[in-house]
C-alpha cells in the first residue's frame, strides 16, 4: 500500500508542467539519438551532464530517463528500415525487421516494435516500482563486506560476459580500474599517479573517458573505415499498420520478451545484447511459423524489442537500490547522481523520495509519450537520416569537445581526450569491449572504499570479506564465473 502512495506522490512530481516538459525533451532527444548513427544514450547523457549545474536533480533525471527509454525506441527504426542496428540491442531486430520491411511490411514491423516497447516498458516499470523498494529494504542491512562482494561479482561478470574473450574483457576492466585510481585518494588524501601534475589531482572524470571512448574513438574509427555506400531505406508510405493476425502473433512475444529482459537487465554485464538474443532464440523455438524466420517473422521483431526496453528498466533496479551500474548508460547515470552529491542506494529512497518516485513515475509518462512520438510520427523521424554523414560526425566532435572543455576548461582534459580517443580507436580495431572500462572506472573507487572499510572493521583479517552469508555466496559466484569456463574446457579436453 505504501508503494502506491509513494508512486502517487511521484506522479504529482512527474506531472508538474516543467517536469513534463523535461520528459518530452528527453524522449525527443532519445528517439533522435537512437535513430542517428554514432551517438547513443550513454554519450548523450554524458554530454548533458554539465546541465546538472543549472537544473534541479528531479528534472535532470526525468530527462535522462527519457533519453534512456527513447534511444531504445529510436534504435529499432534504423534496424528495421535500413538494416543498420545502432546499438547491440537492436541487432536481433534488424534480422527479421529489415526482411519484413523489404517485403513491404515495414509499417507492421515498426508498429510491433513500438507497441512492444510500450508494453514491455510499462510492465517493466511496474516491476521496477515494486522490486526497487523491496531490494532497497534488503540493502539497508548490507555491510561494506557485502557491497565489496557485489562489486567484485559485477566486475567478474562484466569482464566475462562482455566482449569476445575473457582476457579482452578483463583488459578493458583493468584499464578502467587503473584510470580510476588516478588522483587524490579519498580516504587518506594521498596523491596517486599524478606525476606531480596539479590538474591530475582531481582524477580523470568519467565524462572525459566516456566521451573520448564513445565519440572520439568512434569518429576516428568510422573515418578510417567509412562505408560510403549508404543503405537503401525501405519505404513505408501507405502501408497498413498491424493486422489482427499480427497482433495475435505479437502479444505473447512481447510478454515473454519482457520476462526475459527485465531480470537480465538488472544483472551486471548482460546489457541489452544478451536478453534480445535470448528472446530471439526463444521466439524462433516457439513459433508456429518457423518457415518465416529469417524471411521476416513478426515474432522475431516483437520479442527482442520488448526485451530491449524491459532491460532498460531492469538496469535501474541495481542502480537505484544499490548504486550499482550494470551498463555504460547506468555508469553515466551514476556519475550524474554523484554530480549532485547524491549516492543512489537504500538511503536515497528515504532521504529523497520525491526524486526517486518522481523518476519512476516519469518512466510511465515517458513511455506514453514515446509511443505517441514514435508510432504516428515515424515518417518525420526518419528524415533525420538525411543529415549527411560528414557533417553529422563533425557535429558530434564539436559537442564532444564542448563536453570535455566545459567540465573545467583544462587542456589536460583535452589531452586525455586525444589519448583515450586513440585507445578507443585501437579497441574497436582489435575488438576489445568498451563498457567494462567505464564500469571499472566508476565502480573501482567504490569497491576500494568498501574493501578498505570492511578490512578496517575486520582489523585486517581478509576472512572478513566472506564473513556474511551474502558476501560468501557472491564471492563464490565470482570465483566460479572465472574458473568454470576454464574447468569445463579442461574436462572436455580430457574426455
Amino acid at each position, binding site marked *: 500500500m505504501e508503494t502506491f502512495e509513494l508512486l502517487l506522490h511521484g506522479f504529482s512530481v512527474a506531472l508538474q508542467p516543467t517536469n513534463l516538459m523535461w520528459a518530452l525533451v528527453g524522449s525527443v532527444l532519445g528517439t533522435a539519438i537512437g535513430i542517428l*548513427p554514432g551517438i547513443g544514450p550513454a554519450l548523450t547523457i554524458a554530454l548533458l551532464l554539465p546541465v546538472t549545474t543549472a537544473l534541479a536533480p528531479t528534472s535532470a533525471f526525468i530527462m535522462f530517463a527519457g533519453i534512456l527509454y527513447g534511444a531504445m525506441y529510436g534504435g529499432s527504426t534504423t534496424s528495421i528500415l535500413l538494416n543498420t542496428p545502432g546499438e547491440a540491442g537492436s541487432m536481433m531486430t534488424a*534480422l527479421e525487421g529489415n526482411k519484413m520491411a523489404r517485403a513491404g511490411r515495414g509499417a507492421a514491423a515498426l508498429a510491433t516494435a513500438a507497441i512492444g516497447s510500450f508494453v514491455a516498458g510499462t510492465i517493466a516499470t511496474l516491476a521496477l516500482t515494486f522490486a526497487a523498494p523491496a531490494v532497497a529494504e534488503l540493502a539497508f542491512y548490507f555491510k561494506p563486506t557485502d557491497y565489496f562482494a557485489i562489486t567484485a561479482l559485477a566486475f567478474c561478470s562484466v569482464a566475462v560476459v562482455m566482449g569476445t574473450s575473457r582476457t579482452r574483457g578483463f*583488459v578493458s576492466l583493468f584499464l578502467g580500474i587503473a584510470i580510476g*585510481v588516478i588522483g587524490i585518494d579519498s580516504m587518506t588524501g*594521498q596523491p596517486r599517479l599524478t606525476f606531480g601534475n596539479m590538474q591530475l589531482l582531481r582524477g580523470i572524470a568519467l565524462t572525459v573517458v566516456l566521451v573520448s571512448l564513445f565519440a572520439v574513438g568512434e569518429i576516428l574509427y568510422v573515418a578510417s*573505415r567509412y562505408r560510403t555506400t549508404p543503405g537503401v531505406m525501405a519505404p513505408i508510405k501507405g502501408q497498413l499498420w498491424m493486422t489482427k493476425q499480427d497482433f495475435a502473433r505479437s502479444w505473447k512475444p512481447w510478454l515473454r520478451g519482457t520476462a526475459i529482459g527485465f531480470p537480465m537487465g538488472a544483472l551486471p554485464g548482460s546489457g541489452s545484447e544478451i536478453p534480445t538474443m535470448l528472446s530471439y532464440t526463444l521466439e524462433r523455438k516457439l513459433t508456429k511459423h518457423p518457415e518465416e524466420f529469417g524471411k521476416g517473422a513478426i515474432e522475431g521483431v516483437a520479442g527482442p524489442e520488448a526485451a530491449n526496453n524491459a532491460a532498460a528498466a531492469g538496469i535501474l533496479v541495481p542502480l537505484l537500490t544499490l548504486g550499482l551500474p550494470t551498463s555504460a548508460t547506468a555508469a553515466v547515470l551514476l556519475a550524474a547522481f554523484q554530480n549532485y552529491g547524491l549516492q543512489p542506494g537504500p538511503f536515497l529512497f528515504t532521504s529523497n523520495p520525491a526524486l526517486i518516485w518522481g523518476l519512476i513515475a516519469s518512466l510511465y509518462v515517458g513511455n506514453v509519450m514515446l509511443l505517441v512520438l514514435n508510432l504516428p510520427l515515424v515518417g518525420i523521424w526518419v528524415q533525420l537520416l538525411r543529415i549527411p554523414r560528414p*557533417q553529422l560526425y563533425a557535429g558530434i566532435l*564539436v559537442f564532444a569537445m564542448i563536453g570535455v572543455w566545459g567540465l573545467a576548461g583544462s587542456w589536460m582534459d583535452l589531452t586525455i581526450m586525444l589519448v583515450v580517443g586513440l585507445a578507443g580507436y585501437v579497441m*574497436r580495431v582489435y575488438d576489445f569491449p568498451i563498457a567494462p572500462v567505464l564500469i571499472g572506472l566508476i565502480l573501482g573507487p567504490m569497491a576500494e572504499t568498501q574493501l578498505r572499510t570492511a578490512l578496517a572493521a575486520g582489523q*585486517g583479517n581478509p576472512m572478513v570479506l566472506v564473513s556474511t552469508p551474502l558476501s560468501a555466496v557472491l564471492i563464490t559466484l565470482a570465483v566460479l564465473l572465472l574458473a568454470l569456463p576454464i574447468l569445463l574446457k579442461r574436462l572436455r579436453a580430457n574426455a
Partner: protein
Amino acid sequence: MSTDERNTTEGGSPAAAPASPKPYWIGIGLMVMGAVWLYAGFGLPQGARYAAVGPGLFVTVAGAGLLVLGAILVLQISRGETFEAQDAEDADGSTKMDKRAFLTALVAVALPIGTMGPLGMPFTATLSFVLVANAFGSRRWWLDLVYGLILACAAWFLFKQLGLQLGRFFPPLGV
C-alpha cells in the same frame, strides 16, 4: 534450429578474413602501463595506521592485473588469437584502413589542445568541424566552414546559458 543461418544474415562482411594481425604491441603496452602502476603502488603506503589496507594496495592490484593480462595477451597472440575489427553503423570492419582520413580526423581531435585556450571554443570547434567533414569525404570546405561556424556559435551561446564555463568567445580580440 541451427545457428549457421544466423551467422550468414548478420552483417555484410565477407567470410574471407584478411591475414590476422599480430598486435604484440598492445600486450607489451599493457605490460608497460602495468609496470608504471605497480611501481607507483609500491611507492605508496600499503597499510595505513588503523586500516589494514592503505592507498597503495588498489594501485598495486591494478598494475599487477594489467601486467599479467598483457603477458597473457602476448601469449595468446603468439598462439594465433584472431582480432577482427568491430562493425559499426557506418563502418565496415573488413575494409582497409584509410590512413589519410584517419590522420585528418586525428588532427581535428588534437587541435583543441593548442587552440582552445588562446583562440577560444567557437574558432576551434569550427576548424575541427571542417577537418572531420573533410575526413569523411566532404569536399566543399567553405560550406563546412559556414555550417561549423553556425553550429559552434549556437552551441557556445546555448551552453553558456546553461551555465557552462566555455571561456571567451574569441580571446585574441578580447571578446
